């Protein structure tokens, strides 16, 4: 037998906290996109090292310490492939990074594969209009109305793009006590998240409570850790591939003996999506809220369209997420088959039967950690989503969902793009959506509601790997790592 694979429960201290929690109680969020200026690599590394040392980077262990007194601030750092290279992390020949990450979301070939053409992006992980490629992504979460956590970015070292918080993104609905995340079109967001097996997520609801409320459908959302965290078993029961970088093994920083650089990391597929709220409001005025909900695939308060209980009665997110399509709504009479939510997570819609369909869908789940943002320019307020999807296999997860479900006109034999994030190019397919549940399958014409402003693939390293990247010498080596170091030398 070879060496044992790491036990997830023993690695929480090395996993960045955003993989364990969406920080639902921290209602302010900001994102910094940093490009390291030419010749400033050392200064950049020093600044990042200082940031890491300051203790703002939360680990999964920090997140799980206490449910009654959760952490009051959190940040995460991720790097694009060019960012890692810029900071001196060269992939090894034997264990290079996956091709999609190396080529970058901003590359031409990814534009083709993601059906993104035409693109008019402000920034990407490959190039950018003003600064060049984005090297580092920093996300921070703070309590509502708190000031920014990271405000001292040296602009002589970094070219910075700031994505600011939308203060209206958390609101109370249906008279509930808790404020919930609402995106710019007025719909609840952040529901239907996968539950990572053996990683109890702490977003305010107890595990047994969530399990009881979802009943037998709870298992539909339980996904193997390896689908999101590198180095663990995935839905194929296989250990997810971990790339390595030069010098890592010799550094002796691996928390798990023999663990490669990417262990406990994840890939982030990031997109800045601007939402045309005016256009959507005009559509709502013309067609009514009911049609808007059909378009989205959920009620504005987050309940499924087929919800039969009293909608005003407070319902837990777990219960609201416990539904399938095939048995009750195979023809899309309630939730159209082309609705946005049904496209991004078709649950049991595809496949030959319910079980195989659920199994197959689990191969393509995404852990969403995005938040709404707001920006002021030319006297106008622009709103949107800073979309972040954590996944361990970019090709099988994010790219598959984008290419084969969301942006595929022929998805489940339809002939139109996604109603919300689909192409605005009228030459491709009509911007229209059928409502099979309405008389004669009525069809509505759609405006272009969203525009993607930028995007990139980032690697979210484990804490030890993060210290290695920023050259943080003060971070202690693990006991097991000395063995690995000795073996390597």
């Amino acid at each position, binding site marked *: *037998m*070879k*060496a*044992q*694979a790491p*036990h997830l429960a023993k690695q929480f201290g090395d996993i960045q906290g955003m993989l364990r929690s969406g920080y639902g109680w921290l209602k302010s969020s900001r994102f910094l996109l940093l490009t390291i200026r030419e010749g400033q690599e050392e200064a950049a590394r020093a600044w990042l090292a200082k940031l890491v040392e300051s203790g703002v980077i939360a680990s999964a262990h920090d997140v799980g310490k206490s449910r009654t007194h959760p952490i009051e601030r959190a940040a995460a750092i991720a790097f694009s492939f060019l960012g890692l290279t810029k900071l001196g992390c060269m992939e090894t*020949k*034997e*264990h*290079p990074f*996956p*091709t999609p990450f190396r*080529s970058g979301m901003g590359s*031409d*070939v990814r*534009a*083709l*594969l993601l*059906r993104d053409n035409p693109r008019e992006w402000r920034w990407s992980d490959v190039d950018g209009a003003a600064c060049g490629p984005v090297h580092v992504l920093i996300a921070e979460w703070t309590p509502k109305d708190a000031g920014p956590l990271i405000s001292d970015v040296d602009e002589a070292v970094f070219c910075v793009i700031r994505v600011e918080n939308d203060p209206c993104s958390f609101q109370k609905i249906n008279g509930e006590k808790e404020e919930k995340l609402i995106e710019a079109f007025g719909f609840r967001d952040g529901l239907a998240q996968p539950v990572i097996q053996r990683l109890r997520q702490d977003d305010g609801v107890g595990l047994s409570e969530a399990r009881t409320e979802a009943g037998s459908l709870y298992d539909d959302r339980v996904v193997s850790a390896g689908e999101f965290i590198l180095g663990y*078993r*995935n839905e*194929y*029961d*296989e*250990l*997810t*591939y971990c790339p390595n970088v030069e010098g890592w093994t010799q550094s002796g920083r691996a928390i798990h003996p023999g663990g490669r650089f990417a262990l406990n990391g994840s890939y982030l597929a990031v997109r800045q999506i601007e939402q045309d709220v005016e256009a959507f409001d005009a559509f709502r005025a013309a067609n009514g809220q009911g049609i808007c909900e059909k378009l989205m695939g959920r009620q504005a308060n987050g309940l499924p369209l087929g919800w039969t209980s009293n909608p005003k009665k407070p319902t837990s997110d777990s219960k609201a997420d416990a539904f399938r399509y095939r048995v009750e709504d195979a*023809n*899309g009479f309630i939730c*159209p*088959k*082309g609705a946005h939510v049904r496209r991004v997570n078709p649950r049991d819609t595809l*496949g*030959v039967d319910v079980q*195989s369909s659920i*199994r*197959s869908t689990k*191969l393509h789940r995404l852990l969403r950690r995005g938040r709404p943002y707001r920006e002021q320019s030319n006297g106008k307020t622009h709103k949107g989503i800073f979309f972040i999807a954590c996944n361990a*296999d970019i*090709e*099988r997860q994010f*790219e*598959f969902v984008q*290419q*084969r479900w969301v942006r595929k006109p*022929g998805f489940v*034999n*339809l*002939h139109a793009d996604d109603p919300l994030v689909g192409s605005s190019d009228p030459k491709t397919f*009509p911007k*229209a*959506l*059928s409502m*099979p549940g*309405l*008389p*004669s*399958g*009525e*069809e509505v014409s759609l405006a272009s509601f969203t525009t993607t402003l930028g995007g990139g693939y980032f690697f979210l390293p484990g804490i030890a790997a993060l210290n290695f990247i920023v050259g943080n010498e003060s971070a202690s080596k693990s006991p097991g790592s000395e063995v690995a170091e000795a073996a390597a030398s």
Partner: protein
Amino acid sequence: MLEIVRQQMICILVPGWDGTTDLSESGSVCNALDALFEEVEVVQFASIALLPARVDAKDSRPSLMLELAIEEGITPYDMLYRLVYHASGAMWSLYSSFWPGDATALQSERNNKLLEKLMAGVSIADGGFIGARDRTARQIKKEQELLQWTRDQARAMKATKQYGDDRAAFALALAQRAFDEPRFDWALDPAPRSYWRGKGAGILAKVGYVLAIFVLYLAAVWLVGAVPRGVLGIYTWLFGAPYSGVQAVVDAVCKASGWVLGVSIRGALALVGLGYLAWLFLVALPAVSKSWRRWLKSVGRELDRPTETWSSWSTYWVGWIVGVPSVVAVVAFALVFIFCPGTIVGAYHALTAKFLGWQIIAFIILAIVALICVVGVLSRIDQQLAAGNWFFHPYEDDVPRAQQVYTSIDYCEGLVVHETAHMISLTDVRRPNGWNAWWIRTSLRIVTLFGRVFFTEGRLGSAPGIHFGHWHIIEEGRRYLFCSNYDGSFGGYLDDFINGATIGTTLAWRWTTLKPRESAAIGQPAVEAPRSFPPTRFIVFRGVRCELKFKSYARDSMLPHMFRFDARKETVDQINLATGLRDALFGERNDSNDDLIMRAIES
């Protein structure tokens, strides 16, 4: 029957490509080929790729491969004749570099040479599957026009809001409009169907076909013995006894015929018996016993498990110690029954002489109860160990250079993202080549038979979206070529195979390996380090279940296309939808047809 399918997918391999012909996308050769395939109408898909030479090959230049997927019922010779002798001369422009300086030769002379060379390089598929069976490119085109017209009409009708919420009335109105449209007169005839999807679709027809063949075979064997005996009898009656030698020969033939007949019948009975046992243990017992079901599932899971664990390792070795001897014993019993039934009869008499009937029955019942108890205990142990976790905890398994895609392959996939995707994979047959090539051929014939007779609705197993998938054993059994065009992305395609056709895919690929090779041209992938197909267990387990290894293996074996022609770009589902709409619009009015029409117009 299999020949019909295999002939539809051919690859023409011409070694010694010198790379002087311009095969750029907008070049004259590719344009001419596009026009040629368009005009001959029977080519549904074509592609060109360069196959790098084997490291041990005498000629290190690559082979030029032309892949053709054509309509049913055309032989490779007819197809190539039609292409080579086409007035456009497109095929000559592709292959002219094999005869440098021969441009001035007579056209007929050139074409003769070319046809001869191409026929020498023809490889008809050793196995294949066609998703949109019984549809021609022309039919698909016409039906797509009907689908598009129906959608446009529906959009216009919805705008008038005349039909309220009556879906049946709406569907009827659409059907009437289609009926009144003269350009769709062709649709009045129902869409043609292959025998196995039409009249032969029932299980009775499929089983009956096999039975009929078997009975005919038995009759033929019986006649081999009966006819000489009859002739000899008539001769003896007419002219008296023949020479003793003739009598001996006839006796031998009769005896041989009787022996073959007996063996065949007992062989069939043994097969039925083995099938019954398989059904009993794999279907019936799991249905009635929860413990058995759970245990069987866990055995399958452990044998398939891609990571090394104590549970998987121990299951595998228990399989060797208990499972394999049991299976060997059953098969040996079946063989004895087939070839030496007297031994079994003797043993039975000996047994009944020693024990009474009720004792034998009691022993069998006790054996079954003991087996169920053992399975129950194993199932219980399984659960207990699961709680401890260590038994199932995985061990590291290094997969070097995983999730890597060569740039030209990535671009090829990106460029056709709105069309059907395409994959060309070239691997080496494992040694001993002859033995493994035989196994591959056998596996592929089974896949082809099942694809032809059972999987007639566009899915191979439960893997959807395959237009054409064909396998070729080339270079005297040394290499293995797989070409396929399909709906979706490469990763999704392989996921479908891993989940939907696990055993078939493992069987088709497990005899191969990937040896180092040079790239065929600048910008084309090379294989620097050898890779093996993921290890299998008991031939059909594991294999493709090792997703990382399997995808890396498949990715590294891939070659980019330099040219591709796709007569129709619709997905298999869209093709089926359009055919269904044709039959629904012009068929009888009922709920099912109305529903299909309304589904077809959804956006």
